[in-house]
């Protein structure tokens, strides 16, 4: 048995020793956490009284349809190369039967759409094709957006622009906790968002909502330590902010990354797919950086468009993202909707709960 496995077992046995009488609902905000704990099979080894609920931490899942429609319109205009993180290519939007409803569909129809895995690749594509407009479609949370801000701050060629679908994580959690129906007892905060923004950003959960909260990393040890922390906080009725990922997360985060974020971007109200507009929850380009805004560069985006819907009919992604339903409660899960044929965004993304549960072999009853 490795050292880490021994440490994980120790945390697990401590959790089992806790005098938990009533069911405790813990939301793991981050899609990466959901992935780790589902793939490691942690739910099955926890006491039955502990319920782990996946939260809104999937940037692909909450990227609004209008942004995907914008990206498709730019790609189909033939005037630009569109680059995006791979997952975004397959995210479907709700379009009429014969209309193109994914970026992959646009690509199949001849548009120049390319998957990339880093801002550096967007930059390289723009440098290689200096005669052509290159648009970087960016859906992501703070951890991904800080590198994009850093890329812009470092200097990019004029033919590169960004189509931002950038979101902040904590405002969505804040909104969720304001809902009187939110029956959550504790939260596990996202480790890599906190690496950039700092653990302190999550203090409001303990201070404002009097709920236990712990920042966690992605290993079994870190996740179980965080879970033990919040369960104990709950049982002792003494909520505070704990940091169970100190090797990466500082109280104030990565100051340099935060500086780039502040310098290049400003916080704006933003629409979350299936959820609606959340105040101060997205990023827009600030001042001089607006010249890199694809929305200002491409006329096709100004053309009137049929109102875009929210989710494909029958898809429960919005409820899944808000922790109100679990994937297998969706009627389409594993039937009409599977990873090779996703109906909603939660079945596309590596961080979408539907995709993760299906991949881990969880089948509907």
């Amino acid at each position, binding site marked *: 048995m490795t050292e880490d496995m021994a440490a994980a077992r120790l945390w697990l046995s401590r959790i089992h020793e806790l005098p938990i009488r009533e069911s405790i609902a813990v939301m793991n905000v981050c899609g990466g956490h959901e992935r*780790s704990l589902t793939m490691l099979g942690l739910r099955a080894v926890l006491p039955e009284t502990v319920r782990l609920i996946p939260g809104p931490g999937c940037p692909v899942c909450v990227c609004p349809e209008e942004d995907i429609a914008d990206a498709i319109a730019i790609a189909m205009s033939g005037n630009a190369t569109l680059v995006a993180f791979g997952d975004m290519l397959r995210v479907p939007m709700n379009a009429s039967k014969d209309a193109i409803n994914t970026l992959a569909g646009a690509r199949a129809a001849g548009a120049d759409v390319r998957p990339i895995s880093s801002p550096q690749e967007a930059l390289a594509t723009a440098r290689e094709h200096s005669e052509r407009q290159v648009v970087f479609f960016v859906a992501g*949370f703070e951890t991904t957006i800080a590198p994009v801000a850093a890329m812009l701050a470092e200097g990019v060629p004029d033919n590169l622009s960004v189509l931002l679908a950038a979101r902040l994580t904590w405002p969505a959690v804040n909104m969720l906790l304001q809902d009187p129906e939110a029956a959550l007892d504790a939260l596990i905060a996202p480790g*890599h968002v906190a690496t950039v923004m700092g653990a302190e950003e999550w203090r409001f959960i303990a201070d404002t909502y009097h709920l236990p909260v712990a920042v966690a990393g992605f290993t079994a040890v870190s996740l179980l330590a965080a879970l033990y922390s919040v369960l104990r906080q709950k049982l002792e009725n003494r909520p505070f902010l704990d940091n169970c990922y100190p090797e990466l997360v500082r109280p104030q985060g990565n100051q340099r990354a935060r500086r780039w974020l502040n310098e290049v971007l400003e916080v704006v109200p933003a629409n979350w797919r299936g959820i609606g507009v959340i105040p101060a929850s997205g990023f827009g380009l600030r001042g001089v950086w607006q010249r890199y805004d694809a929305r200002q560069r491409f006329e096709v985006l100004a053309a009137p468009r049929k109102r875009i819907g929210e989710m494909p009919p029958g898809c429960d992604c919005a409820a899944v993202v808000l922790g109100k339903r679990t994937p297998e409660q969706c009627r389409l899960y594993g039937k009409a909707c599977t990873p090779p044929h996703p109906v909603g965004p939660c079945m596309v993304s590596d961080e979408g709960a539907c995709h993760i549960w299906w991949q881990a072999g969880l089948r509907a009853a």
Partner: protein
Amino acid sequence: MTRPATGGYGMCLSVPMQIIAIDGFSAECEARGVRRTVSLFMIEDDEVAVGDFVMVHVGYALRKISADDARTSWQLIDEILAVTAS
């Protein structure tokens, strides 16, 4: 496994890599025999040196980590990939 070992692995997860060479804000990094150019633009002042491990997210080093933590992270990635592949 269809994804490269050191990138595109979700948008929130990051992978540990070891620094082989540094040139300004750019570092040559390696993990599992795969080499990649990684930006040090987000690393806070004078923090890293050749031989150090860094947590890399979408091509940017987020922070230096210990060799031990790098190893643990890779074990996790292996475990997850094993489930994904099966």
